[in-house]
Structure formats: structure tokens, C-alpha cells
């Protein structure tokens, strides 16, 4: 697990990596097949997986049952207008699966977000989002909390054990040059900037300002976005003086 939260009734007295989660929440379906993320590592046969999927995407994912899928991103955007409230949606779904009732979930959201959000309205829309999630998940069965001592049914993850190496091996030198584009950061995108060439006045601004160098200019000085690597920050669309970038929800990065 690269990122995790420990939740328990009793005091949590340990820290460090989480080996066998009771519930796995995958906020971005494109991570399921990423060896570097391996979000399903360490699960047991019956560990539920909560999977945020893009309803319009044709991607086929082989996630073993029990799996609970929903387009939480679309729900978040519909309820609050903000992508960042995806966290609220996933927290609500996870609470539901953990057997918390909605009142407790609402109290948690209130405590967590009251200091962060600008207005009462924003908080209310996040609470409404949690309610939507609880409604959607009304027939989900809550997680059966496993006994940690029993590891017999842990699914072996297909991972290379790196172990502890001396620094010269643990942080090896890189002899390649300019090979980072092989890493496709395009799957970070929630939105995709799509150029409408007839609106573009070829001013170069998007090319100059894209932090990623994901935009190149063609021979006629029209910008081309490399979707393999574009992270979807949308700075280009925001800065374009002629609004030549249409912004679409990402379907298949």
C-alpha cells in the first residue's frame, strides 16, 4: 500500500506499512494494473475492493470479487462542482462499507472539512454528496473485519522483494538520457485538453507555459498535446487567450 489510513476501535499502536488491508479503496482505476502502485497487494481472498471507475470508459479491469464499483468522480463533480470532493465520496463509501451509519460519517466530514472549506454551502454540498453515496450503497454488505493473526488466505502479490540494500545499490546511477517520457503520466488526467484548431491563433502561450513540456508545436506552429504524458493540469486551457482548448472528462488515458 502506498497510501493508507488505519482505522480501529482500539488505540492504534503501530506504524509503518500496511500489509493486509481489511478494505482497499482504489481512487483511480488506472492504478489497478500499475506495478508501481499495486493497490491490490496484500489483500485476502474476501477483502472487498472499492473501485472508482469512469462510467463512460470502456476499460476492462479484472478485479476479483467482492468489488464495489461506482463513478465517484462523476458523483463528486455533480454534487459539489469540485473534483477534490472525490475524497469525500470515497470516504463516505468506505464508511458505508465499514459499517458506520450515515450520522457518524457526516460528523466526520464536518470535523474534517469545517476548517478547510470557504463556506457553509461548500460543506453542505459535501454532506449532500455523502448522502448520495450512502443512498447508492444502501444494499452493500459491510466488511467482515478479519482476524489479523490469520494470514492463510492472503493472496500472494506478484512483487519483487527489494530488501535492504546499501545506498549504492538502493539508489543506483542512471546512465540513460531523457527516458522519462517512457513513464506515461497521462493516467493522472481527470480532464483532457482538446485543441479546436480553428480557434487557435498560434500564439505559443500554451507551449511556453505547459510545465510538463507535453505540448509541441507542429510545422505550422499549432500546438499538439502528447496525451501519453500530459498530466491534465489544464493550465494550457486556462491560459489560452482564445479558449481554443475544449476540456473533456478523461475517458481512457
Amino acid at each position, binding site marked *: 500500500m502506498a497510501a493508507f489510513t488505519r482505522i480501529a476501535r482500539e488505540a492504534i499502536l503501530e506504524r509503518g506499512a500496511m500489509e493486509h488491508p481489511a478494505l482497499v479503496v482504489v481512487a483511480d482505476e488506472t492504478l489497478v494494473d500499475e506495478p508501481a502502485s499495486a493497490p491490490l497487494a496484500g489483500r485476502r481472498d474476501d477483502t472487498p475492493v472499492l473501485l472508482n471507475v469512469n462510467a463512460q470508459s470502456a476499460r476492462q479491469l479484472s478485479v476479483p470479487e467482492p468489488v464495489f464499483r461506482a463513478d465517484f468522480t462523476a458523483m463528486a463533480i455533480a454534487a459539489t462542482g469540485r473534483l477534490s470532493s472525490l475524497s469525500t465520496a470515497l470516504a463516505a463509501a468506505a464508511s458505508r462499507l465499514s459499517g458506520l451509519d450515515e450520522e457518524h460519517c457526516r460528523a466526520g466530514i464536518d470535523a474534517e472539512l469545517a476548517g*478547510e472549506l*470557504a*463556506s457553509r454551502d461548500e460543506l453542505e454540498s459535501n454532506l449532500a454528496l455523502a448522502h448520495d453515496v450512502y443512498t447508492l450503497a444502501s444494499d452493500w454488505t459491510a466488511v467482515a473485519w478479519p482476524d489479523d493473526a490469520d494470514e492463510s488466505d492472503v493472496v500472494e502479490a506478484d512483487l519483487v522483494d527489494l530488501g535492504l540494500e546499501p545506498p549504492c545499490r538502493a*539508489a*543506483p*546511477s*542512471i546512465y*540513460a*538520457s*531523457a*527516458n*522519462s*517520457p*517512457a*513513464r*506515461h*503520466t497521462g493516467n*493522472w488526467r481527470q480532464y483532457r485538453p482538446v485543441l479546436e484548431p480553428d480557434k487557435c491563433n498560434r*500564439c*505559443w*502561450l500554451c*507551449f*511556453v*507555459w*505547459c*510545465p*510538463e*513540456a*507535453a505540448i*509541441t*508545436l507542429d510545422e505550422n506552429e499549432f500546438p499538439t498535446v*502528447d496525451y501519453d*504524458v*500530459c*498530466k*491534465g*493540469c*489544464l*493550465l494550457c*486551457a*486556462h*491560459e489560452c487567450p482564445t479558449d481554443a482548448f475544449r476540456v473533456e472528462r478523461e475517458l481512457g488515458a
Partner: protein
Amino acid sequence: MSAYESSELEAIKNLKQIAREEQILPGTAICGGCGGLEALRLAAKVLGEKTVFVNAAGCFTLLAVFPYTPLKGSWLYTNMASASAGAQGVRDALDVLIEKGKLTRDEDVNVVVVAGDGSTYDMGLSSTSAAIFRELDFWYFCYDNESYGNTGVQMSSATPYGARTSTSAVTPASREGTEHGKKNLFEIWRAHRPPYVATVSARYPVDLTNKFLKAKTLKGPKLFIAHAPCPTGWLYDPEQTLSYSRLAVDTGIFALKEAVNGDVTHTVLPKRHRPVEEYLAGQGRYRHLFEPERNERALALIQEQVDRYWEAVSQ
């Protein structure tokens, strides 16, 4: 080869003279919309491929992580306090190799420290001071995201008064968040009398490019402070990075200037500055100055400091 090498060091006049060739490629783990990367990418276009970056631990350490590098040139990772000492070692080694004839002058490279503000203003200041004192022929690029970003946005001595960080929280006892003002790094460096010190912002890519072009003609320590809006730490949406670059310059909070052999020139002089509130208001790290009620005292103080700075400039 950098596109600037043919037109050797002539200042550019417009955006379309910026090199099309990239020196820092995509695919890194740096956050989407990172303002520091935006500035470094433009700077690297001038520095060109014959560059070795000497990095202090920070966000940009994630640029080159085995087995990937976004660079055509080289990269050396050092620790937070000693990037400038690392640069000294690399420069000395290059000089020795050239002197012994094992490297030709043509194969020489720019030695460029890339470090965040935590390393630059705090931990590494002593080794940098020593390197400037020794007149080391190197470049120093500080991307100033005004916090220890990589470890979770802790306060540094570059964090501005009134900004909230994870170690300068807003509490009933401290309504401002950060209570201290930012160190004046430009003046600290200038007091060492290096040939060149400049501030840069992606807001003005031509100004940024020309400052790097000018520094190419100067031997010795060449120092750059880049305004580096940070969506992750400053708490705004990544698409707004340029908006905050723009507002920082337009409100006068970030002054674009250079000092050649100690003489200061402001390279962009807005006729009238916008109120600082326009810069502060949308950033989550300043939200407590506006909500639940306005902290008039803190807001007035920030405005006064900016006004006082520019009054001194116009005298």
C-alpha cells in the same frame, strides 16, 4: 545544443524566440501544474544540454529517480545542506580534467544547483555563502515554493507572513499562521557581491530567458530566485498556477529585478500595482485571513510592506 547558441547571447524580444527544443522532458513525478518546474523548464532551455544539475533534497529530487531521467544532460543528487559544496566538487573536477587535457573546453558543462527554498534559505545557506565567497563559477536556481514542500509543506524562512503551513497552523493564539516575514535572500546574496543575482517568474518568460542569457556572459556565482506557485502547498487548483505568477508580479509582492555586480535594476515596473488581496484571496494557505472574518490587521500589514518596498524603489 541549445537554440540560443547560434544567436549567441543576444537578448530575445518576444516569446516566439524561446527555444522549441526541450531540455526537461515529461513523465516525472512532479505535481501537475507545478510552477517551479515551469520556471526551471524555461531556464533549462537557455542552459542547454551541456549542463549538470546539482540537486539538494526536495520536490525536484523526484525529477530523476532510477531508472528514469527527464534530462538530456546530467544530474547529481546531494543532500539538503550541501548542494553548493557539491557544485564546487563538480566544477573543480571539470577544471582539473580540462587542465590535464582529458576534457576539451568544448566538453565543459554548466554547473547548476537546483534547490528549494528550505535548502536555499535555511539548511544550505552556509555552503552557498562559502561558494560565493570562493567565487565559484556556478549557477544557482532556487525554486521558491515558500515551504518544505516535499515533506508535507512545513514552514521555511521563505514562507511569507500570514501563510498557513503544517508547522505554522492557524490557532486561537496565532491567527496569522506564519508570524515571521520572509528572509530577503536577494539582499543576502547581493551582500556577497556575486556578478549576478536575479529574480525570475514564468509570468514573464522573455524576461526570464534574457536573465539567463545575460548570466551566460558572466563568470562566477550566478543566482536566481524563481517564484514557484505550488498548487499542492498553496492550496489552489493546478490550472491557476499562471494566475498566481501573474498576480504576484502585478500586485508587487514578487519584484522582478537583477543585480549585475551589485547594481540593482528592476526589470519589470508595473505602473500601478493591484491590491495584494487579489493575490492572497484564492489561495487556501491564506484563507484564514478572509474567513470566517477578515483579519484587517494582517492584510493591511502585508499591503504596507509591499508599498514600502516600492516606495524605496522609486526614490
